[in-house]
């Protein structure tokens, strides 16, 4: 099993998968904020990358590869300036966050595709 894990690099793959999961969660959080840009009293939410990563890695060393998206939480942004209607969504910031999340996702996807290509290369005996 160690040999297979060495080739497929389970830890790296699960880390990349986690990055994609978090990027998708941030994308969804920002999409929700954008949808509510004109809802009175709506408070913008955000997925904190560092907190989420810590929460997932800290559970147990053996869980590194088994962590799923259940640990991804969206929380209201504290201390944000509200408009007169109590809404804390900033339109351009949310679009920026979406672009950034798309970049993160794309980067992880590219790395993951490269990993899978290596595995396929090994399976096909280098052909």
């Amino acid at each position: 099993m160690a040999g297979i894990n060495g080739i497929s690099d389970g830890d790296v793959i699960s880390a990349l998968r986690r990055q994609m999961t978090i990027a998708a969660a941030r994308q969804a959080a920002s999409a929700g904020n954008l949808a509510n840009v004109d809802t009175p009293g709506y408070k913008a939410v955000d997925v904190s990358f560092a907190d989420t990563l810590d929460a997932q890695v800290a559970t147990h060393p053996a869980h590194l590869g088994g962590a799923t998206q259940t640990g991804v939480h969206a929380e209201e942004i504290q201390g944000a300036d509200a408009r007169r209607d109590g809404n804390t969504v900033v339109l351009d910031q949310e679009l920026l966050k979406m672009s950034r999340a798309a970049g993160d996702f794309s980067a992880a996807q590219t790395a993951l595709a490269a990993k899978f290509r290596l595995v396929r290369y090994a399976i096909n005996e280098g052909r």
Partner: protein
Amino acid sequence: MSTLNNAISASASALSAERTRIEVAVSNMANAESTRSANGEPYRRRDVVLTSDPANSFDAAFGHASATGVKVASVVVDQSDFQRRYEPSHPDADADGFVALPNVDQSEEMVDMIGAARAYQANLAAISMIRDLVAKALELGRS
């Protein structure tokens, strides 16, 4: 993937809510001079009330990352006073020669319409970004 599906349905709900706002603003502008409506008095301007609507209440209940959609809670009728204009020749003028006109302010409606159009554009941009993400994820399955 369900996260991204939620995000798309949240953005889609916003598109329809913003379109309702534009429709209401347009009908307010169209009726800016309507001195008679079905109940006999001049037209009263309408306002859209938006409220957030969890796209996936199951995820939201557990505090999981899930996009929050938006929906039109109600369309309320503005009860503020009518404008009055001196125009004795108008068929709806009162004894003093004043006509009661709808409580519609053109500039207010324009600002509302621009705001709604901007929000519509932003949500459209969000949908296309999420769609790119899904397409990118599906590329992993290609050999």
